[in-house]
């Protein structure tokens, strides 16, 4: 989807009816915002980590100028992703270097980094990306942050084609269309209700995961009370 590789000959990806292979790779990549599961932790300032697509506009590591960055979009993306709270806690705010290996640099937890990565993608969306790809977007967030993220999910992705890749049914069930991939092939396609009703692989896995949570629920509650 992100056109990082030349599409293979088995099947086609169409963008408004045009084969992805016929589109200019760089032009298309500018239309896509992606949060990869193994997103990169750049040894740059918090501002540049979020406004990555405007990297050339700033003066960089230790620099002070960031003229080409859209500050309103930056703040909005940070608010939407929950990164604003992370930035507020940094010693030099947006100018803090996010790498503990450098003078004045700090490290973030996995969940904090994931919020920064989400903000990075949402900044791109604010600046015109039309497709948002989220690969396990909340895997490193705690339950509360995950719930907050999904409570705002429709607002965040409004007007944008969003593709979510996830093993979590709490994430997947919110999608309009769910594609079940098995050995590299789409084996089931439909809404959550459709797929549960079809009683196939999706329904089986959903039931298994739901049962696990149901079994774990009372035990965890009991332990916290004790």
């Amino acid at each position: 989807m992100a056109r990082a590789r030349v599409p293979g000959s088995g099947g086609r990806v169409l963008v408004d009816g045009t084969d992805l292979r016929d589109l200019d790779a760089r032009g298309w990549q500018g239309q896509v915002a992606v949060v990869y599961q193994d997103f990169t932790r750049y040894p740059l300032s918090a501002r540049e980590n979020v406004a990555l697509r405007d990297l050339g506009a700033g003066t960089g590591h230790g620099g002070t100028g960031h003229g080409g960055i859209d500050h309103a979009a930056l703040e909005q993306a940070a608010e939407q992703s929950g990164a604003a709270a992370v930035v507020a806690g940094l010693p030099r705010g947006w100018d803090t270097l996010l790498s503990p290996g450098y003078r004045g640099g700090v490290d973030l937890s996995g969940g904090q980094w994931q919020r920064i990565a989400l903000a990075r993608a949402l900044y791109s969306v604010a600046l015109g990306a039309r497709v948002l790809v989220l690969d396990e977007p909340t895997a490193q967030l705690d339950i509360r942050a995950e719930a907050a993220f999904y409570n705002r999910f429709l607002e965040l992705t409004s007007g944008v084609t969003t593709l979510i890749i996830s093993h979590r049914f709490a994430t997947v069930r919110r999608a309009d269309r769910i594609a079940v991939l098995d050995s590299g092939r789409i084996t089931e396609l439909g809404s959550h209700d459709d797929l549960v009703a079809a009683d196939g692989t999706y329904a089986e896995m959903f039931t298994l995961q739901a049962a696990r949570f149901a079994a774990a629920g009372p035990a965890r509650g009991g332990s916290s009370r004790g």
Partner: protein
Amino acid sequence: MAETPRRAPRMLRRLGVLLRTAWRADPGLLTACTAAALGYVVLSLAYPLGFRAIINGTTEHRGGAVVLGVIITVVALPGSWLLRLVGATLGSKLTDQASLRLGLLIGRLVNAAPFLEHFERPDYLAQIDTLRERRRTLAAAPNQSLGLIRSGLLFAGAAVLLALVWPPLLAVPLLAAAPGLADRRAGQIERRNDDDLADSRRLLGELFSLASTAAPARELRTFGVSGALLDRHAKLGDEVNRTALSAARRAASGSRRAGSCTRPGSRAPRWC
């Protein structure tokens, strides 16, 4: 002046550390290198004595002295060359062995700590970087120290020989002191510069890794910033080069001033 008594034991301690590293790396090789260095000094100082015996024997018509002089010269002159060559070959091997030992030592020390603080604190990281980058230089230090000892002995021997010829000639070797001081100053500038640039050099390496590793490169393409990152890399590289060049110029100007001190007729530089 007050520092001189403290400086000498510190230098000796450093020399001891360096030679101990080489000894632990390969005791036999260090012994052979030391023997070659001492043999070279003895033979290098012996052949001028052979020349003297030949000249004195000839002018004084003493055949025995001429023969002795010829024997000394024939043995000592090629012998000193041979030992110089053997010493260089063995020294190179000693450097390799010391480098290997230092590599193992650095690896063990870095991995021995049960915590990861040294990977996250800039001052520790700068030290580890410097150690890694200068491992080869550090490994060459035992061999260079031997060379220094060899030069010192030759220097002292030459001074004695010159004094035997005409005592005022003793002043000639002292002119070598100024370039020595300049080298020391240049070394200090270089070390300070390396410390100042450690962060920038590390970032340069990290930016290169980001641009040349699959996962970050994929993300950089998606966000359309591969070019910007390369520009940043080039700009930072220019800054590092400019700063390093400026430090090298400062070091070289010190050396030039020291060199001018040794040229006949030149004005004495302010600090020599």
